[in-house]
């Protein structure tokens, strides 16, 4: 074939094919890159309701900076148990009326109903999504995995502060935790 006058040299096929193969591998990598990218987009937009975490110092700064005294927000606490766990899991108080810019404390109660030790992970989610990035926690039982003795129970606290920049049309925020049996039981 190579003796045909119009047939381009073989090398150039390899070149095009090589470039295309690189594109294919790059896109495979891009698939994985979408994972951290997605987290960043979630952080920016509040998509999927992941909440913010701030240090105590930052929270204190907000607190002294701006307190929207005239604004009241109702915070609802919700608890869910994912399949495959034998638990009692509930918020100690169902709702709270809070002022943005002030620090509040709430707690959840959890109890292991099985006769073996279990490690659990609580995952937070805030609704509406628009509120998620303004809902900041300085301390939360969801930051770490929780180990339970057989039939053990505990009160689990969280400290939160709602950013005064919370969009004006949000008057009610739901904080939900889902209790999962942690995939890592060690």
């Amino acid at each position: 074939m190579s003796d045909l006058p119009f047939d381009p040299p073989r090398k150039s096929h390899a070149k095009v094919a090589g470039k295309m193969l690189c594109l294919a591998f790059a896109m495979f990598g891009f698939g994985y890159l979408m994972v951290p990218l997605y987290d960043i987009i979630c952080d920016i937009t509040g998509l999927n309701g992941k909440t913010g975490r701030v240090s105590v110092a930052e929270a204190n700064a907000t607190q002294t900076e701006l307190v929207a005294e005239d604004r009241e927000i109702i915070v609802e606490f919700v608890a869910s148990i994912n399949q495959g766990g034998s638990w009692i899991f509930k918020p100690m108080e169902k709702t709270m009326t809070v002022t943005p810019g002030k620090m509040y404390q709430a707690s959840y109660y959890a109890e292991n109903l099985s006769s073996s030790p279990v490690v659990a992970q609580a995952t937070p989610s805030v609704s509406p999504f628009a509120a998620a990035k303004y809902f900041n926690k300085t301390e939360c039982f969801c930051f770490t995995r929780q180990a339970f003795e057989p039939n053990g129970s505990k009160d689990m606290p969280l400290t939160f502060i709602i950013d005064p920049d919370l969009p004006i049309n949000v008057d009610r925020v739901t904080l939900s935790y889902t209790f999962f049996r942690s995939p890592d039981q060690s």
Partner: protein
Amino acid sequence: MTSNVSRWALLSLMLLLVPFGASAEWGALNMPQGVTEISNEVYTLHMRIFYICCAIGAAVFGVMIYSMFAHRKSKGVKPATFHESTTVEIVWTVVPLVILIAMAIPAARVLIKMEDFSDSEMSIKVTAYQWRWQYEYMDSGVSFYSQLEPSHNEARQMGSDVDLEATFSPSRKRGDSEGGVYLKEVDNELVIPVGKKIRFLHTAADVIHSWWVPDLAVKKDAIPGFINENWALIEEPGVYHGKCAELCGRGHGFMPIVVRAVPQEEFDIWVAEKQLAMASVSEQADRQWAHQELVSVGEKVYQANCMSCHQAEGQGIPGMFPAIGGSDVATGSIDKHIDTVMNGIDGSMMSQFSEVLSDADLAAVITFQRNAFGNNTGDTLQPSHIKSLRNGVDIRAPESVALLPDTNTTTGVN
């Protein structure tokens, strides 16, 4: 000869479409207008875009069909030679754009309205399970599960000889275009007051589901680990039916939704009744039950919750759902049995029932399973035992030893 074929075919295509149009009323063919302000606006958008599409279709097909008749070779026409025109290209790029913008503006307006959750007066948490819904009223604490009504569940089993038309179609005789209630009724309806903006908080405990009530124009996915929200404000009392809209496994087609909107006073009475009923459920757990009573209650619980997988005779489906008759779980250690039913089996389709069923129902169904389908353990499991388990009393504590199968002679059979 070939043109005869085409003419014959075209004619029969037209004839076929005639009875289509005539056979059912328009209401049964179109999106419901619904009962909320939002659902009406969605309906208006839907009809508007539908008419626009019809108009575009009529114009394009009109030109095409005219051309197909006028510009055929058999008529002796000579083909033209034009093959481009920048002006025409620009026109048919810009005109659709203008139509789109005209459509996008009202759509965006409705969307913004849908996403406005402020000033809600009541929150209901809706948790989806395979294959039922749990409703929790955040303020009154009323909480219950809602699943396909048992008689429907029985009728929908393979090989059931229930006449669906006769059994579930009474409303059809009344000329109701809804056409029967098969697969639409649930054991516990979601009752809400009219005239109040209600927030629904959606989550799921296993896989993704989607809560959809067409009359309210709400559809939102229930995603395990995350919370989603939605709202509705119903003006008119009535009963509105819905379905799970996201494929969630074997029972996906069988988790209907019923929303009953009632006046506020009626709602308050309903809440009080529900609260009383919840209290009595907990009382039921404390009394001693007779063996036969547990078995007969257990049979009903079995039919509503277990039968669709483990089958009517407890024979299961080989390779998919294990049999209960003669199974190790249902004839071996009762602790294992209780654990299986209450907590499910991780990574399988066996879901946990500890949250779904009351103490009495759990005890009843386990007792039933251990004494049916050829299982003869003679065991009786008291609801109080389940209650003690829930309260964290160790399952192997001495006082519950009497419940183990090898000592079943001492169980509390009345």
